[in-house]
């Protein structure tokens, strides 16, 4: 699916020659230290970001040919929940239910939010917001789930619900790519460990710090 991807952020190489393949029903767990490029890789897989090198193929077809068509195949959960505080849970999700054609009540039920569905999103706790964002993933009815730390802020019961949702999705032939720092109930899963910064000495903050010191002197 992905062949020797490379991505730069600024002048820093975050992903160097990363390759991965995912079959139907497969799941891939991305691990690695902070700043290793896990989220960046997810954004590349979603087609939100163009890789600076390498190719991304879906059924043998490069996704850059038609990024809008690829967008319809992807359900992306970023590290932001992307909810509008003034809209209710249902109103927040309505647009995505329309786009993906998913069943709103079923999705809300799957994340145990049915009883809160008419509350404005600003009244929700962090975990409830995360569950709403997960409901959006369910509503997209997309074959490829890209989950950026899906269990962030979730309690044990919600993590179990997440595990069930992922299992159902995979049983239907769906693909899951997730990043995490904590164990996730993914079932059988392949791992891809990103090594972290290729050059530790001149990393994220390195250049700035050197500049600051230069100014001070």
């Amino acid at each position: 699916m992905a062949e020797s991807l490379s991505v730069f952020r600024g002048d820093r190489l975050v992903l160097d020659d990363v390759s991965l393949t995912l079959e139907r029903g497969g799941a891939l767990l991305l691990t690695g230290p902070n700043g290793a490029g896990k989220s960046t890789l997810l954004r590349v897989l979603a087609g939100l970001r163009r890789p600076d090198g390498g190719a991304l193929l879906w059924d043998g077809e490069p996704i850059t040919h038609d990024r809008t068509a690829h967008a319809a195949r992807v359900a992306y959960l970023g590290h932001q929940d992307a909810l509008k505080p003034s809209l209710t849970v249902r109103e927040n999700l309505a647009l995505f239910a329309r786009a993906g054609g998913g069943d709103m009540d079923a999705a809300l039920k799957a994340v145990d939010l049915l009883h809160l569905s008419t509350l404005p999103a600003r009244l929700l706790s962090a975990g409830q917001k995360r569950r709403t964002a997960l409901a959006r993933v369910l509503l997209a009815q997309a074959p490829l789930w890209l989950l950026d730390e899906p269990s962030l802020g979730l309690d044990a019961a919600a993590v179990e619900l997440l595990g069930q949702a992922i299992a159902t999705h995979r049983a239907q032939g769906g693909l899951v790519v997730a990043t995490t720092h904590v164990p996730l109930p993914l079932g059988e899963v392949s791992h891809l460990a990103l090594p972290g910064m290729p050059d530790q000495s001149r990393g994220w903050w390195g250049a700035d710090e050197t500049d600051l010191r230069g100014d001070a002197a």
Partner: protein
Amino acid sequence: MMGLFCALVARDLRLALRHGADTLGAVLFFILTGTLFPLALGPSPDLLRHMAPGIIWVCALLAALLPLDRLFGAELEDGSLDQLLLLGLPPSLVALAKITAHWLTTGVPLLLAAVPLAIMLGLPTSTLPILLAGLLLGSMVLSLIGGMGASIVLGARRGGVLLPLLVLPLITPALIFGAAAIDAARTGLPWAPDLELLGAFLAAAIPLCPLAAGAGLRAAVE
């Protein structure tokens, strides 16, 4: 695809309704700046009538700029922009939907508020239809060019300052033709050519601005 487009516009209208103060802000700004001119220039009816087209157009222009930097900025900050681009709509249609919502929540109220302002400044009532026709076309042009500008400065530091610098020079043709049409109508000259040029400007902006805005949105999430 059309249904999804309308759903996106409806979502933005609902958001605008929930944040009524922000929406009203632009209109109040328009009326307030318009009322400052008689106070600053003195109460001479002749002078005000002479300057009314220019005053109304410049104030409408500045008022429509106010909500622009939040148009895509709010979506980028809370991560919604990623989700909107993954809806399966081409980015240019996402941009066009947001621009349409901006016109409905800013352009249309400004159009309505222009009537009392024109009467207050002593513009002859016979020229009111020309004023409204010009502003109708002009406000659409403004939303389109403004939306394009907003997507281009998206993610830039001090984007709010950059935005007027980018949009105002591009919008000057609309300002010239729009104000000239009212002036022509007031002095009994043919006003149709000015409105036709304004319409031509709009016809060019409708396909081009969403394309540029869509590319801007793509670049902003990279």
